[in-house]
């Protein structure tokens, strides 16, 4: 496939990385993080808006977005958090696609809601896949754009598509689930905690701490200190809520290290992790207990049929791009 430069990065924003929906989970045994878009539903939606397959590489932007100069006319798709995107000063809301011309400036202003926005470009970003995906692994320093966040001076390329859809329109938006309680299952080390700890996790109101990152959402609330703080290192699925000696839980996100030595009190089900990833520092997190059956039914990625119980509204949009 041919590709050509698409964006010159004028400002990188707080943390802007190339990500896609596929993970490196099967490389966990080499110490590699799963990685990938923290809200894969929104990444997939951004791609659909740009006319791409769900797993094309997109930009994941955190809290404060970048400033990008468009190097050739194309179609962009935006989904996820509302970080105040504009094209030459005109606002673009999540759930919309927009045609942009050579020389246009895409910038981001004030954050309105959510934490992570996804910007897709027709054809998908062209970076070399490493270990099965184009996603950036910040800890390992590989994947994406040279294994690091995008910064001023970078030039990003995208694959060229013969008939780039020069259309603009709305295609519904994924529910960011900002008020939803996150569904959890008990973790394997629950017996290492005092009797009431799991109940406290369920009853309390937690706040996302500013030190949260792509590795984990650090939560602030009541003490959950385990009776034993150190356990032999154990493989950790994404979503595991581990509690270090300070008693404050950390819900592991996609860039978590694949093994760790803190007891795990509970685990957030995969379908609800995007909702956690969209909480910004200071936002409230509540948990509710679910069942294994419900957890297995809940979908982590949108199906091709557009509406489901996970809050997808694609079918309600009138026949795709309008």
């Amino acid at each position, binding site marked *: 496939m041919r590709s050509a430069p698409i964006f010159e990065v004028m400002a990188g924003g707080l943390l802007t990385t190339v990500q896609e929906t596929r993970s490196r*989970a*099967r*490389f*966990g*045994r*080499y*110490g*590699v993080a799963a990685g990938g878009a923290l809200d894969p539903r929104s990444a997939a939606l951004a791609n659909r808006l740009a006319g791409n397959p769900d797993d094309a590489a997109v930009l994941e932007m955190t809290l404060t977005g970048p400033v990008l100069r468009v190097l050739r006319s194309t179609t962009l798709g935006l989904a996820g958090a509302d970080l105040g995107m504009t094209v030459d000063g005109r606002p673009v809301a999540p759930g919309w696609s927009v045609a942009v011309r050579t020389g246009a400036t895409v910038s981001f202003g004030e954050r309105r809601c959510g934490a992570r926005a996804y910007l897709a470009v027709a054809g998908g970003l062209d970076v070399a896949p*490493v*270990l099965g995906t184009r996603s950036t*692994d910040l*800890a*390992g*320093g*590989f*994947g994406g754009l040279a294994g690091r966040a995008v910064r001023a001076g970078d030039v990003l390329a995208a694959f060229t598509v013969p008939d780039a859809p020069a259309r603009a329109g709305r295609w519904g938006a994924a529910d960011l689930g900002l008020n939803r309680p996150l569904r959890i*299952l008990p*973790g*394997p080390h629950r017996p290492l905690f005092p009797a009431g700890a799991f109940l406290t996790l369920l009853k309390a109101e937690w706040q996302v701490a500013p030190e949260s990152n792509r590795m984990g959402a650090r939560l602030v609330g009541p003490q959950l200190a385990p009776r034993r703080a*150190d356990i*032999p*290192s*154990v*493989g*950790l*699925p994404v*979503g*595991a809520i581990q509690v270090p000696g300070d008693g404050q839980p950390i819900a592991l996100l996609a860039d978590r*290290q*694949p*093994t*760790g030595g803190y007891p*795990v009190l509970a*685990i957030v*089900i*995969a379908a609800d992790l995007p909702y956690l990833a969209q909480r910004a520092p200071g936002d409230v997190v509540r948990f509710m207990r679910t069942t*294994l059956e419900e*957890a*297995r039914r809940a979908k982590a990625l949108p199906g091709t049929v557009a509406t489901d119980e996970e809050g997808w509204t694609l079918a309600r949009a009138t026949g795709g791009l309008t």
Partner: protein
Amino acid sequence: MRLFGERALLIEIARRPSVRVALRVAGLAAALERLAGVEAVVPAATSVLVEVNGVEEHVLAAAARAALAKPVTSGTWREHALAARFGGEDGPDLEETARLAGMSPETLIDLLASTRLTVAFIGFAPGFPYLIGLPRCLALPRLATPRVRVPAGSVALADGWAGIYPRATPGGWRLIGRTDEPLFDPTADPPARLAPRDRVRFIVT
């Protein structure tokens, strides 16, 4: 075998790590990885995490039992001799570590260099080997305050393990030496140079 969320199972085979446990964990991980419906296996100190998609639990349990019934000596491994420098700038914690272990830095280096370690698993960071088989006197707790930056190639000890940091990262282990041997290359197959069951010796340079 315990559920770990809706898509993973944790198979814990011992309470405490040892060379024998490490070999059993490695054998179990290798056997389960080949099963249809297993998406990923992550071996660790005393357990294997199995991420599944559509595999029946009893099938997994039967495969686990079969793997654990095999002698620990089965399976293949490679020998690695890793050249490393010890002490000074390369091992800023060597002196204190030796003092806590009740020996001179020279004795500690001799002891380590004469020990054949076993790779138990790769974890914490891409390519980071957890090496088991240290003499008991070198089992020391990690540093009270982790370093913000541990240089790439650092050879370190903590909690009865030896490890090597393939890349600069924050870390709380005791740094005693440093190697220039590359341990992780994301473009190689497999990306990690060391694998569970491999044996490692340090060559003092």
